[in-house]
């Protein structure tokens, strides 16, 4: 399954342009982080993909089939998880999922099979008889995910899934998303928690004011590497770090150094080679987890549309 967003444009009332010529693509097995400041056009793009909104121009295709011209096909291929959570006092988890299974056209035994399958996968089996409003936020998020998966879609769209979740629920959600990606689903997930995205996503799309920003340049230009040495070695390492080709800057960080390289992986390899040649063996050598945050801060200007 290949999802292609092509030159998408959407303008709301009073000329507010939410999406401005946005193009990107992703395929089965990929988990794409969809990043941007508030008002960047993420939710609008996702709603168009889920057939809940329509663009002024441009298109979104699923294996070449337009979601605008054939929304009924898109419904079967796309699972949408919005940022608001289900909460009703008159509906249980099981009834909620049963309704959506039927609504997606499942019939007979397939309904129970699908409902029990997603309840099992999302860990909701023991909560199936609880009403929706009696669930915690994390559990509601799982119900929302289960609902999006009940018809086994090839594409999953998740709008701010980790919003408001506690650390444990976030980690559990992250593992679920990774598992779905490994199972071959094409996933587009937006979040403001960039470190979370970085851990679950295979790549990312950064947008601002409805336009895609070029993050590639930022990735290659600025890569931070975290280094730690045994006591006594730390001070000796600094001159070696600075003389290595491709290293732009180094700054102290606890018992080690944060090194900024200019040319990504090549500079990192050169740095490692240089350190080992001088017998300055680091006990920690890893790219910084906050890389996406750095890229995001580098390429976005924080402007609203």
């Amino acid at each position, binding site marked *: 399954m290949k999802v292609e967003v092509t030159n998408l444009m959407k303008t709301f009332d009073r000329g507010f342009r939410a999406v401005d010529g946005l193009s990107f693509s992703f395929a089965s097995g990929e988990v794409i982080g969809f990043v941007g400041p508030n008002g960047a056009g993420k939710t609008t793009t996702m709603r168009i993909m889920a*057939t*809940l909104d*329509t663009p002024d121009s441009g298109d979104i295709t699923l294996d070449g089939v337009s979601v*605008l011209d054939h*929304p009924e096909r898109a419904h079967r291929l*796309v699972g949408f998880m919005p940022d608001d959570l289900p909460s009703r006092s*008159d*509906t249980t988890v099981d009834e909620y999922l049963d309704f959506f299974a039927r609504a997606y*056209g499942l019939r007979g035994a397939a309904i129970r099979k699908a409902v029990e399958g997603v309840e099992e996968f999302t860990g909701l089996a023991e909560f199936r008889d609880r009403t929706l409003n009696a669930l915690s936020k994390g559990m509601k998020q799982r119900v929302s995910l289960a609902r999006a998966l009940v018809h086994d879609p090839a594409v999953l769209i998740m709008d701010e899934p980790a919003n408001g979740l506690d650390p444990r629920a976030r980690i559990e959600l992250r593992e679920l998303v990774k598992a779905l990606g490994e199972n071959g689903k094409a996933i587009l997930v937006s979040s403001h928690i960039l470190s979370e995205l970085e851990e679950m996503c295979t790549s990312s799309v950064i947008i601002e004011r409805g336009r895609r920003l070029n993050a590639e340049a930022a990735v290659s230009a600025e890569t931070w590497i975290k280094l730690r040495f045994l006591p006594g070695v730390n001070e000796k390492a600094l001159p070696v770090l600075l003389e290595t080709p491709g290293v732009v800057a180094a700054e102290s960080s606890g018992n080690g150094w944060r090194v900024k390289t200019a040319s990504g992986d090549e500079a990192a390899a050169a740095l490692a080679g240089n350190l080992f040649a001088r017998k300055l063996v680091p006990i920690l050598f890893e790219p910084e987890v906050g890389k996406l945050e750095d890229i995001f801060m580098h390429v976005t200007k924080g402007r609203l549309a």
Partner: protein
Amino acid sequence: MKLQLSINPVTLKELRQLVRSRLILWGIVALPIVLLVATALVLSAEMHGLSPMEATYGKGLGTGPLIAVTAVTGIVTCGLIPLFTSIRTAIETSKASLGLEFTTALTSAQIATGKIAAAAIISAIAVALAMPFFVLSYLMRGVELASTFLIPLELLVASVVMSSLGLLPACSRRSIAMKIILLMALYAVLSIFTTSLSAFFSIRGALAGGTSSSWPIAGMFFAFAVPAFMVAYGRAQAAAELAPPHTDFARTLRITQAVLFAVGFPLIFAGKDPCVLWSTLWTLVAGMIALGAAARPLPVTRGAALHAPRPWLLRVLAFPFATGSMPSMFFASLLAMASSSMLVLSTGGTIDFDDARFAIVLTCECGSLVVAAGSIARMIVGAHPRLATSVGKAAAAYIFMINGLQFLTALDVLERTALRPFPCCIEGVRRVPNGHLVIAIVMVIAAICLAMAAAREDFKRFRKP
């Protein structure tokens, strides 16, 4: 081949939720008690005023309980249940929780149908609870056997009609003012319902061999076809209101409009009193179309364009149905004017109908012209959509006023002479009956030309993408 019974998922969901509603549960428990108390009170009052020796159909002790039971059941089935359905739907619409249903294989028409069906099932339960009291009335010679079953059936039909029309304001994502206006449209239902009920009693009288029906075919039409039309229209309009923007949300509505027109138009002349039939049909079809369209002009959607016919002439014919307020209201005015004109022709230019009723017909027609003018104005003043919306709202208000007068006249609240100040005075029509037709035709042609000229940009978009 395995036969699978497929229940509308929305109906199932609604019923599951209603089971957990305390209001519904207590209502079901309380209804028989209320009916019992009402019957006992009325019966007690009657026993002090009537001797059993005088008892005949319609005058026996059971008449009072029949009226009481019909009233209580009617309030529940035609008032409370549709209102409850409407409010629940309005809450769902305002919370946008319906949005997720549109990411499924469900269509907006299925959603509307599911909600109407759930309301109908609850109404059927209420009617079933009232049945013993109707039977009691029969046993006490308050009503004949056929009516013991036909009255509850009529209540059930009316309940479904009310539920389907009650969905309209609830499904609408328009401003509160327009929702109130749409809600006011329900008064038309009362008008239709009373006409339908009188027609039903006319049939009942004919069946019982008592008072004969002067127009049994028309009576049958009113009693059953009109409610069926109203449900069909309410469902289609609600579906159009609910549908997400990527779909051709007006397609079902257009088809329903066309079917209503094709079926309803010949029936206008089936009865012996076409004036009454026409004015009712106007309120039913043209009024609803005009009001619905006036409230929200709709642009040519990608979905509508996708279904546009390729031949140019067919596209021209389909275009009025594919766009917003102008074509629908124009269609409504055409319906009104064509009906009225044919009415004049069918009488050979001699008007021998009840003056006041005919004045109502013509005044309605005048109102439809105002609506049409308002809708065309939108296209003419395309650069000023707010002005167009205001014109549309004013036109809708005017239509309400006219239909209000019609309703009040039907109730004899207004003196017949009260309609004289209105433009289409009966005296003028009497003098030059065919002049009215000529004026109508000229206005229609002029309106078509204006609309075509103003709509050319919209029409360019009405082709397959």
